[in-house]
């Protein structure tokens, strides 16, 4: 038993040894290491994501309280620091009650949406706390929150997230009296890079103004102030929350719902926690899964959940209620496009709601044409999900895919061959409203390609295209007629000159008469080819 053996036999580590390194990691810790999943891949995008999360939160809060939003955004370089910015977003929303401030901003996955579905910008309860997390990770500074609910008290709080516990850590807290206002102001310091480009903050805010034409947004950027004025003063109708539809629930969510339900029996679970499940449907599901009706849902676990999930898929159910959605509606879309893009023609189409995998959704599109839109470039495509602009990953997005699969040529527009966006002075607006938007990833940048969604987008665009083509064709005919007029105006002096020499008549008179015929529309301008001639060349020299 010498050194030799020791060399050969490596020391085997026991499970106990390994267990010393194993521990539960919190969601905060996870995202600390996987920040790209939340849209913080690089410094440029990170700055946009911070602004986006705060603005989305503000708009959601205002709309829920039925307040016409006023949003102030400020992005300023920290003096003396490279790539370090202070981002602040302020709204005139309802404010946040004191006891919730910490959890709203300082705890990931804080939300109330396990048992209901509601069309809103946020879905998972990660957004704003994710921004706080990114800020403290890159600057080490706490988030500064100032809020009031209109009771004369203004709460100021500096907080950080305890990533190990996924709990807010209040650094400083105080209350000021006297000022009467409501709303929230959040200020974060974070690493970032400010670049004006296609996916810049100002572009994001411009698109936000397009899809939220009732909001006023003032942006104080490192390059100066920009104001996006509201084009309408009314909010869209209020969305209603609905319970999940069984066909829209994935197995993981079903497991979680079983664990957290307040129902005592399986029948009760299905009839109270879901929409569109009556007694008989619930019984059929349970029968197919071969469970007892009185089984406590909390006792179902492991492979049993799978059995229940399979049974749910086999039962025919009515579609979920569709009146829960809040589309912008055609007028709002048209007003927003007119105000922000200054085109000469706009058309918007709002489709009736439909369902993908048990989730209600609604598609609306707008097309702006001409005016101040750039005439020779590829059309601008603006994608929105629940009124939030989607800035990245157009290539993976069902909305973009549907737009380029349209035969725009059919509607009088130019289009490169193959699936492509049209070319010309065109901007296309596509909005999906849904209680659960099927994003391809947590960073919420692209919509998954459900056939129902693609079909609805196409139907909407085709209808808009038909209306646009009437306008475009009318305009083109007018343009062609003007072009012909000017062509003949140029020919007239030449023909008058030659005809004067041929006939002996006076040149000026011929020209005047021809011009009169042209301008007063005395003559119909034809466009018919002459019959073809034989090739003269080999016939005769």
């Amino acid at each position, binding site marked *: 038993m010498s050194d030799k053996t020791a060399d050969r036999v490596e020391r085997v580590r026991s499970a106990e040894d390994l267990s010393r390194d194993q521990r539960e990691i919190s969601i905060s810790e996870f995202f600390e290491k996987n920040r790209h999943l939340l849209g913080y891949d690089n410094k440029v995008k990170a700055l946009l994501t911070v602004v986006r999360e705060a603005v989305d939160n503000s708009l959601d809060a205002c709309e829920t309280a039925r307040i016409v939003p006023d949003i102030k955004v400020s992005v300023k370089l920290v003096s003396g620091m490279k790539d370090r910015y202070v981002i602040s977003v302020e709204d005139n929303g309802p404010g946040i009650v004191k006891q919730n401030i910490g959890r709203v901003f300082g705890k990931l996955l804080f939300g109330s949406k396990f048992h209901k579905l509601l069309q809103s910008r946020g879905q998972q309860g990660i957004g704003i706390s994710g921004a706080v997390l990114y800020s403290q990770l890159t600057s080490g500074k706490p988030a500064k929150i100032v809020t009031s609910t209109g009771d004369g008290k203004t709460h100021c709080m500096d907080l950080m997230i305890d990533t190990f516990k996924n709990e807010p850590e209040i650094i400083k807290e105080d209350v000021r009296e006297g000022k009467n206002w409501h709303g929230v102001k959040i200020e974060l310091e974070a690493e970032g890079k400010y670049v004006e480009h296609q996916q810049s903050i100002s572009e994001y805010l411009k698109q936000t103004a397009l899809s939220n034409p009732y909001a006023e947004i003032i942006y104080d950027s490192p390059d100066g102030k920009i104001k996006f004025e509201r084009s309408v003063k009314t909010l869209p109708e209020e969305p209603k929350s609905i319970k999940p539809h069984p066909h829209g629930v994935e197995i993981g969510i079903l497991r979680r719902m079983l664990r957290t339900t307040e129902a005592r029996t399986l029948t009760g679970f299905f009839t109270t926690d879901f929409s569109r499940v009556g007694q008989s449907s619930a019984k059929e599901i349970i029968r197919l899964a071969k469970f007892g009706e009185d089984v406590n849902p909390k006792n179902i676990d492991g492979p049993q959940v799978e059995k229940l999930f399979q049974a749910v898929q086999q039962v025919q159910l009515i579609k979920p209620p569709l009146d829960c959605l809040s589309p912008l509606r055609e007028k709002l879309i048209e007003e927003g496009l007119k105000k922000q893009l200054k085109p000469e023609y706009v058309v918007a189409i709002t489709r009736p709601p439909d369902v993908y995998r048990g989730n209600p959704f609604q598609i609306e599109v707008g097309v702006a044409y001409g005016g101040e839109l750039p005439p020779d470039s590829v059309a601008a495509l603006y994608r929105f999900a629940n009124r939030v602009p989607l800035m990245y990953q157009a290539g993976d997005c069902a909305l973009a895919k549907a737009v380029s699969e349209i035969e725009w040529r059919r509607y009088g527009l130019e289009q490169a061959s193959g699936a492509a966006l049209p070319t010309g002075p065109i901007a296309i607006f596509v909005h999906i409203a849904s209680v659960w938007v099927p994003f391809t990833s947590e960073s919420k940048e692209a919509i998954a390609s459900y056939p129902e969604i693609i079909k609805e987008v196409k139907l909407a665009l085709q209808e808009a295209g038909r209306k646009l083509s009437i306008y475009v064709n009318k305009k083109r005919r007018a343009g062609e007629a003007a072009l012909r007029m000017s062509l003949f105006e140029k020919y007239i002096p030449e023909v008058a000159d*030659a005809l004067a020499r041929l006939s002996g008549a006076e040149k000026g008179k011929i020209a005047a008469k*021809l011009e009169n015929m042209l301008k007063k529309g005395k003559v119909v301008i034809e466009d018919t080819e002459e019959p073809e001639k034989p090739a*003269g060349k080999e016939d005769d020299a």
Partner: protein
Amino acid sequence: MAGEAVKKLDNLGKKLVKDIDEEKNPSMTIPLRALSNVVFDRQDKTLRIGGKTFVRSFFNVAHARKFLQTVEVGAISKDLLNNNKHASLRDVFYMAKRTIPNTKINVVDEQQESDNAVEDLEMITGSWREQLHINANKLGAVAGNVIVEDAGDTIDWSKLGSGGWSIPSNIEELKFKKVDAKYVIYMEKAAVWERLNEDKVWKKLNCIIISSQGQATRGIRRMLQILSTEYKLPIYVLTDFDPWGIYIYSVLKFGSINLAHISDRLSVPNARFLGITADDIEKYDLKKHFISFKDVDFSRLEQIGAYDWFKNNKDWQRQFKMMKDWKAKAEIQALSARGISFISDKYLPEKIKNEDWLD
């Protein structure tokens, strides 16, 4: 003569001005020069223009430029007539060519366009090109025992050395002082003419030899017609054995599609095709000098075989069939393989003596 043409051009101008006075789209009616509007007159063995016409108007996007070209060339012609000057087709092209102010449009871009306008004016006015004082370039070569007077000069076709005399575009004023020949040989190739001239064939066989390059010009066709009708000389045609050569013969004899409106002044119904024929190729063993047919040759052969004036001619259809079967063509110069002067010493004398030709 000139007065007549001026009057006709004047009429065209007045008609157009009248249209404008009446606020009508100024337009001219032009007979259609296309195969669909050409009729073969079996009696006279001549192509004639049919009754189809088309209208060219100013206020028509597709016509405006051609309308301007026609009026412009008409004005140029009228000016030439009034000043008793003649211009070449090339001159007319440059006289008409200019850019319309504030556009990138030229009145004419290519000579073909002003040439077409000239032909259209011939149709509209019923005057031929030379009467409008527009001439083509002189072309080709002639030699023989003939003396002519042209613009006051006397030209002896037997004393012109190796070059011969080029035939002017307009031979209306030409006077024949002496014509001493038994027949005329017209050949497609200048090189063959030079061979025959060097061998003094015109002297040995007492004939006139004429060539151009490719299609015969109007001047040459007119001259052949005069020699045929006024001097009763047989006209023999010598071309390559291919669809293009046969069409040269076809134009000489029957007239062309493009100039069917003046066939009466140009065609030579008595012309005969001397060679080279399919039979010559077999007789003189020329197959080894064949050139393979290309796609264009096949399609041209097809077209020519279907023309009214060849369709029912058994002798010609036999030639076409042999050419098609051989999938090949042959040049006149292939005869040189039998000796440089074989054509002069043996081929031509024998063909003519044996009356070995196609009609």
